[in-house]
């Protein structure tokens, strides 16, 4: 009787994995929030766990707004927020872990370089629709924009002084990787993504070229030294000033001990 | 074997053992309707223990419906209503509180198309036995052999009992179904045109089998084949449509029906068919 067998298997599984009732752990932290930050924080957590036996840190994703909401409701100890906190979020304690610059990318087949801020505005408002209008070949421009609410969109819009409703895009994307792949696959597309991501792909041979969003050259170095303005903070937030293990974990995340991990994720350690 | 009989007895509700004069099955004014449509009206028929009764007549005049009443397979038909009096060994077959499961173990049914389950031959035969509570393997094996021998299938299949029943020929399948019905030692075996889907040779084998089954149980057989009715039956009942409703126009021994019919319909039907 397959049904019965399935049930038996399920029960066996339940016995093999009994609920952890009162197991020997001294502290458990739950961290939720931005998926951009999750791989980094997850790696930091592994290293922290190894250094502090008995501590367990569960990292969950779901977006920056979830990080804020979960911390406020007490579901999570720490929230990951990949943007500047909004005025109505000043009840939270903010700890910046890393920074992430935003730069324009085009395909390597595209000869147009550089782009002025006005030209970018022209492209994103639909005034410039063909690369020939700004010295390129006669090809229609494919404008890649981010979805409403994304923090890179906010930074971009702030930088070019546009409202969301002004933008005339052809493709709307979610994550940075999607932006890179769209531009890599379409020689006449333009988009904006995390500088670290773009740098990695440019080095790895993906046909994308990074361009500055403003006068300063777009490099992670310039983001690190603070000269490149279009960058977002990657934050760990708590409802109250952090205490105990949470405080230690946040301090650890901001310490030089994890800078290699931050570089591994192509972000920039935040200046202390 | 003794075990099986004991089990079969257990499942047989105690009934008053009728005297030889009392018929095993007694129908009085039985009518069947499907919704508003009446298909069988006012059927009265006695069937004696140990006899073979053939229900004959053209298609669509209620023979199968009547058969369905005898083991309450009509329950499966939505909005089917049966009225009148129908008794098996004195027990009321139309009692809505009757245990139909127990009834169907006493009254077996063979379908027009052989319907072995899509399992192995052994599993086909094991199922009803296990269902009747025969837990141990040996009595089951013994019963299977006994019944397969009874239908003459043992020599043909004993070395491939674990093969698919569906791989058997049509005639073998039908004999397997009969063996399956015999396992529970039914008092009555209902057969709904058991040979009509078979080739003549398989049909003849099954027909011969019916003769040998007489000693084990009472048989009621629906058939369109008048020659077959003459060969296997003791008594015949001719069903006929009257005003769109099936009923019995004449019943009697095979001799009466075929050689001295009282009704002109019978005479014409028998003559037309004989000629």
């Amino acid at each position, binding site marked *: *009787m*397959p*049904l019965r067998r*399935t*049930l038996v*298997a*399920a029960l066996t*599984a*339940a016995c093999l*994995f*009994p*609920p*952890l009732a009162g197991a020997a752990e001294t502290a458990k932290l739950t961290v939720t929030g931005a*998926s*951009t930050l*999750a*791989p*980094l924080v*997850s*790696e930091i957590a592994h290293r922290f766990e190894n250094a502090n036996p008995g501590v367990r840190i569960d*990292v*969950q*994703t*779901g977006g920056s707004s979830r990080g804020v909401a979960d911390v406020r409701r007490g*579901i999570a100890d720490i929230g990951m927020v990949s943007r500047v906190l909004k005025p109505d979020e000043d009840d939270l304690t903010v700890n910046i872990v890393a920074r992430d610059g935003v730069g324009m990318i085009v395909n390597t087949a595209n000869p147009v370089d550089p782009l002025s801020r006005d030209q970018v505005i022209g492209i994103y408002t639909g005034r410039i629709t063909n690369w020939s209008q700004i010295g390129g070949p006669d090809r229609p421009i494919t404008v890649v924009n981010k979805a409403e609410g994304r923090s890179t969109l906010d930074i971009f819009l702030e930088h070019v002084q546009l409202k969301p409703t002004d933008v005339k895009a052809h493709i709307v994307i*979610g*994550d940075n*990787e999607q932006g890179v792949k769209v531009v890599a696959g379409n020689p006449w597309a333009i988009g904006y993504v995390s500088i670290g*991501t773009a740098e990695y792909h440019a080095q*790895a041979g993906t046909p994308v070229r990074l361009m500055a969003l403003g006068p300063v050259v777009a490099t992670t170095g310039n983001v690190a030294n603070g000269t490149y303005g279009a960058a977002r903070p990657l934050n760990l937030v708590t409802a109250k000033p952090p205490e105990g293990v949470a405080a230690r974990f946040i301090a650890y995340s901001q310490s030089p001990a994890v800078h290699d991990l931050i570089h591994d*994720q*192509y972000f920039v350690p935040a200046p202390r | 074997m003794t075990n099986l009989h004991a089990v079969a007895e257990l499942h047989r509700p105690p009934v008053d053992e009728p005297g030889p004069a009392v018929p095993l099955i007694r129908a009085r004014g039985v009518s069947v309707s499907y919704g508003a449509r009446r298909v069988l009206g006012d059927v009265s028929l006695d069937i004696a223990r140990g006899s073979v009764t053939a229900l004959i007549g053209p298609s669509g005049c209620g023979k199968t419906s009547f058969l369905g009443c005898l083991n309450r*397979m009509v329950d*499966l038909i*939505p909005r089917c209503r049966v009225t009148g009096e129908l008794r098996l060994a004195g027990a009321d077959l139309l009692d809505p509180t009757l245990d139909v*499961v*127990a009834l*169907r*173990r*006493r009254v*077996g*049914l063979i*379908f027009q*198309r*052989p*319907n*072995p*389950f*899509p*399992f192995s031959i052994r599993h086909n035969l094991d*199922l*009803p036995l296990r*269902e*009747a509570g025969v837990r141990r393997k040996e009595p089951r094996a013994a019963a299977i052999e006994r019944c397969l021998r009874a239908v003459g299938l043992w020599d043909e299949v004993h070395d491939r009992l674990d093969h*698919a*029943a*569906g*791989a058997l020929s049509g005639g073998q399948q039908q004999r397997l*179904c009969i063996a399956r019905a015999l396992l*529970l030692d039914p008092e009555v075996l209902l057969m709904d045109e058991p040979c009509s889907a078979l080739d003549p040779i398989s049909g003849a084998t099954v027909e011969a089998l019916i003769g040998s089954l007489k000693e084990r149980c009472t048989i009621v057989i629906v058939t369109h084949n008048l020659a077959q009715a003459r060969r296997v039956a003791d008594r015949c009942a001719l069903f006929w449509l009257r005003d769109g409703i099936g009923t019995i126009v004449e019943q009697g021994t095979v001799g009466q029906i075929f050689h001295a019919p009282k009704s002109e319909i019978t005479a014409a039907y028998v003559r037309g068919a004989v000629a």
Partner: protein
Amino acid sequence: MSIDALRRRRTARVVDAAVWGVPAITVAALAWLLADVVWHGAGQIDLAFLTTAPRSAGRAGGIAPMLVSTAIVVAIAVAVALPLAVGTAVLLVEVLPPSASAGRWIRRSLDILAGMPSIVFGLFGNLVFCTMLGMGFSLLSGGLTLACMVLPILMRAAEESLRGVPDGCRRGALALGMPRHRAITAVILPCGMPGIIDGLTLGVGRAMAETAALVFTSGYVDRMPSALTDSGRTLAVHVFDLSMNVTGGDRWAYATALVLIGLLLVTAGLLSLASRFLQRKGAHKP
């Protein structure tokens, strides 16, 4: 030969070509897609990849915890959804009369369920299982959420399969004096088993490939789970994370996807063997 006959022969040839053409296109598209995955991913796969934990957010090390989490989550989903689905299908086909409005409503409700996007299941599971029922981010929450998701697939497949069981089997079983519930469990369900297994294969495939519903329920933790109440990242979530959130994770995403596809092929193969075995035991269609 008449023109009519010629035309008919031409139609036959066109139809035959089309019937061979469709699988050819499908195979070509799949081969293309698979080749893509193999090309990018095969280089990363070795024994260590299957037996060690991930390092550097998945760009080193292996996927062992994800394999275990996936197996547990899918097992929970099947263990919960399969009995429910088969029970519901039996109810619809064998118990309720075909005209019953209850049956129609159950079927409709499951059809609507089948069309809900998986992210809605994820948010639902998060709210109901993780928060309201207090299971937190756990394999259990994930499994239960997946169960809700695959329920319509399993139910529809089981229902269709039971409808295909020949009436002869049904009546035969009842005429043998089997009570209805025994006729169903001993005869009708075994007859319908191949179709139920086909549905199960689809359901398991869907469950193994699911991402959005699990991000919010079984979670993101890439540790080897030690309890059903632990959070655990499944293979599909890992693939998604590597390809969307981890810069430079593409090759590892493809490698993980390749393992996932391999795992599914093995599961589908085993299930189809089981189905074949059942059919060989029966091998008959009256």
